């Protein structure tokens, strides 16, 4: 069932070999082929624009009012590429190795190599599109380092890298819209997938202004709907981020891979109240110059600046002397949790740690630090009212990124023929933990370079078939199912709000399926989530109607899917009796509290099939031909 379709040949030539053998479609025929791209982030906008350039007819969807607002816009830190501009020994091979190791050897060698290989041309591409990356006085591009690696390969545009990349992708998208090759449907949310004779042939989307359900048919469907960490409710993601499109695809037959692999980011702003809707990320790049610490004394009451050096515990530097404050995210988050749980947390709720720039300012001067992180300090001040040039920031771990997602093969096709998943919504390249600045990269590479080169292999055969039309009975049937679900939600008329249930789900997920997990907790969580789900369908109140703009209904539909996805995440975490990357099972750790991986039993990607409310496990064995999995040590 899981054929990863990895091309023949040595690692370095696999992608070239693949391209040499893939089918071509002549320009006159491309015009006849329609592709739906759901999502306008880096993955979706990149794919839609490039497919349009190649001559396909593209329809692109997003739920925001403009494609420019996709959550890629929020990425701050940067994007990696193996350019070796800093002459510090970087190479495609090293980047490949860092990424594979960073993911704790739970991803495919061939995919990861391709990611590293295509990274350098991607920077060329973005520069050509006018992205104002940071530069040296001499005019060349600057790099910085990011967590989990020892070379400087991260390109950035102030603290707004995601915004600048997305605006470039968005501008290409609108260029192709002007060329009439892409039709853009903003404020349209995909609610289900339509499959005809076993192949993905269209979607049902809700027009968020009028509430109308609309049918769209195509020769292939590409999902680029981003991450699903809003399942935790509190996360660094935008409020509208959802798992609905991939969840509906999963329920219609697409396998879901490694759903429980979730990255918890170490440097977000701490939660301060129950009403909080979002945890703002402070870019990881801050860890380049900031030092993380907690007081050595649990009962410490002095202000941070009054605590002398010898009474501070720089726990990352202590535990991981060679990587120190730049330890990878999973490790840094877990180390923070360990200190906070042990009672050393700071802040009003004692749920944070300090991130201190005092030494950096002394060493490099205020101006340099301002130049590097000015806008992050400004943002910190806006949100907390505190000037972080004067006293340390308070930071805390937060749900941030989904390594898991729809299972895809080397061509980025899911287990449903004609359905592709690109960007954060697939599982492909990051294994059990993603390295900082590798995800803008993956979303962009999937969208610009990979998908447009693999989809033709499928579309060449679609050319010989009839084009699907929206009056096919399958469209009728799926649309009716969506209508029924909406009506059911509106007719519950209970007493509780959608957010109430989302908070409940979030608490369980954060408690049992986040930074550390154990069997007992996961078993309990599964029961609890089922209860919340039952209660949701009996007690929720969704006011307003469906033939109109209704933001409560939008939330309710997304939560209905998160409630099911949460169950699968816990099931997956329970099944994996080892610790790897972000997946830390308390039962499986070394005496020093580090993750204990089990390559004999678990060197596979879990891929779950949905069958009438049950999940069936399939395994894609990971073969390591080129690197030997080692114990991932950052000490």
């Amino acid at each position, binding site marked *: 069932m899981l054929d990863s379709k990895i091309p023949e040949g040595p690692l370095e030539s696999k992608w070239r070999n693949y391209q040499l053998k893939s089918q071509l479609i002549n320009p006159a025929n491309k015009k006849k082929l329609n592709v739906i791209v759901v999502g306008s982030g880096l993955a979706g906008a*990149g794919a839609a624009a490039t497919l349009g*350039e190649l001559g396909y007819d593209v329809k692109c969807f997003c739920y*925001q*009012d403009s494609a*420019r*607002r996709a959550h890629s*816009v*929020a990425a701050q830190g940067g994007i990696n590429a193996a*350019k070796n501009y800093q002459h510090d020994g970087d190479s495609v091979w090293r980047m490949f190795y860092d990424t594979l190791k960073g993911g704790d050897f739970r991803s495919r060698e061939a995919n990861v190599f391709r990611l590293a290989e295509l990274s350098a*041309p991607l*920077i*060329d*591409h973005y*520069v*050509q599109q*006018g992205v*104002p990356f940071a*530069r*040296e*006085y001499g*005019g*060349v*591009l600057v790099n910085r380092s990011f967590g989990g690696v020892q070379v400087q390969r991260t390109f950035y*545009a*102030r603290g*707004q890298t*995601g*915004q*600048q990349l997305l605006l470039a992708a*968005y*501008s*290409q998208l*609108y*260029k192709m*819209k*002007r060329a009439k090759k892409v039709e853009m449907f*903003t404020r349209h949310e995909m609610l289900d997938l339509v499959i005809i004779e076993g192949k993905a042939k269209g979607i049902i989307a809700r027009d968020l*202004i009028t509430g109308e359900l609309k049918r769209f048919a195509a020769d292939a469907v590409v999902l680029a709907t981003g991450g699903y960490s809003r399942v935790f409710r509190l996360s660094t993601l*935008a*409020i509208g981020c959802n798992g609905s499109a991939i969840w509906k695809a999963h329920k219609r037959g697409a396998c879901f891979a490694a759903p429980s692999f979730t990255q918890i980011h170490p440097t977000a702003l701490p939660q*301060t*109240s129950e*009403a909080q*809707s*979002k945890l*703002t*990320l402070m870019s990881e790049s801050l860890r380049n110059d900031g030092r993380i610490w907690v007081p050595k004394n649990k009962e410490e009451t002095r202000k941070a600046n009054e605590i002398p050096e010898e009474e501070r515990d720089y726990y990352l530097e202590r535990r991981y002397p060679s990587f120190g404050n730049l330890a990878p995210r999973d490790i840094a988050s877990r180390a923070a949790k360990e200190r906070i749980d042990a009672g050393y947390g700071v802040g009003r709720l004692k749920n944070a740690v300090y991130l201190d720039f005092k030494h950096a300012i002394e060493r490099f001067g205020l101006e340099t630090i301002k130049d590097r992180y000015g806008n992050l300090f400004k*943002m910190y001040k*806006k*949100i907390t*009212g505190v000037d972080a040039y004067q006293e340390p920031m308070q930071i805390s771990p937060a749900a941030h990124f989904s390594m898991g997602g729809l299972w895809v093969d080397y061509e980025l096709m899911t287990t449903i023929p004609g359905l592709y998943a690109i960007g954060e919504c697939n599982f492909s390249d990051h294994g059990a933990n993603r390295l900082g600045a590798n995800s803008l990269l993956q979303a962009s590479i999937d969208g610009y*370079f990979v998908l447009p080169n693999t989809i033709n292999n499928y579309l060449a055969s679609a050319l010989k078939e009839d084009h699907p039309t929206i009056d096919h009975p399958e469209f009728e049937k799926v649309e009716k199912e969506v209508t029924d679900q909406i009506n059911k939600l509106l007719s519950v008329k209970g*007493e509780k*709000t959608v957010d109430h249930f989302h908070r409940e789900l979030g608490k369980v997920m954060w408690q049992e399926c986040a930074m550390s997990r154990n069997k007992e907790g996961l078993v309990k969580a599964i029961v609890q989530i089922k209860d919340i789900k039952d209660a949701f369908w009996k007690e929720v*109140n969704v*006011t*307003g109607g469906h033939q*109109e*703009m209704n*933001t409560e209904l939008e939330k309710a539909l997304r939560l209905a899917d998160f409630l099911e996805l949460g169950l699968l995440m816990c099931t997956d975490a329970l099944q994996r009796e080892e610790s790897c990357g972000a997946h830390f099972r308390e039962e499986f750790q070394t005496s020093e509290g580090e993750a204990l991986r089990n390559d004999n039993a678990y060197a596979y990607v879990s891929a779950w099939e949905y069958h009438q409310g049950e999940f069936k496990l399939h395994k894609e064995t990971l073969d390591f031909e080129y690197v030997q999995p080692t114990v991932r040590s950052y000490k």
Partner: protein
Amino acid sequence: MKVTFRIWRQENKNSKGQFESYEVDGLTEDMSFLEALDYLNELLVTQNKKVIAFEYDCREGICGQCGVFINGRAHGPHDHMTTCQLHMRSFKDGETIVVEPWRATAFPVITDLIVDRSAFDRIIEKGGYITAKTGTAAEANAILIAKEVSDKAMDAAACIGCGACVATCKNSSAALFTAAKINHLNSLPQGKPEATQRVLEMTKQMELEGFGSCTFTGACEVECPEGISLTNIAEMNARRAKAKWFG
């Protein structure tokens, strides 16, 4: 903390709207302004009423989706801040807070506090890009760009497209938005080949959309969350004049 919200309610784009008052108790100072509206909406649901529609996504000041008029100012009482970054500590206990949608001919109201800003996308569509297909780029460091030039382009490129500049302008001008994109691209070597066409077509579209003209009051710069400078407009006008007269 207790406040009274006076909020604009409007069924749809064709209906006439009106203000409605909501007294809300139980807020805290560290809630964000949007979280206070969330809180109010949850109260409305428990009273079986339709919630207030308002916009947001990232809630961290970068996506540009949020934006309402608060007590007569775009994005509320502070300079250079988005609505989602505003916190209740900026208001007094017992205060009445008036909340309205952006008002501009080119931004028609869709419902309640939500307006249609697609005019911005159509301005971008007329040249807010560099024409170069995927896969055709030369080596990145082959194009040298002085740090000052790149920094200046970045200053302009930082625009989040929220529309506060339009909403706050007495002429509902979109000059700051349009200028920011033109200056970002036209100041970079990559943007030069299409520079003339870009400035002419984008400014033309800006006028076609029904945005007013700029009279340099500077109100936009103050409300811009990114603090994009008014000098961008002067620079755009100079580029436009040059393009018109010298091609």
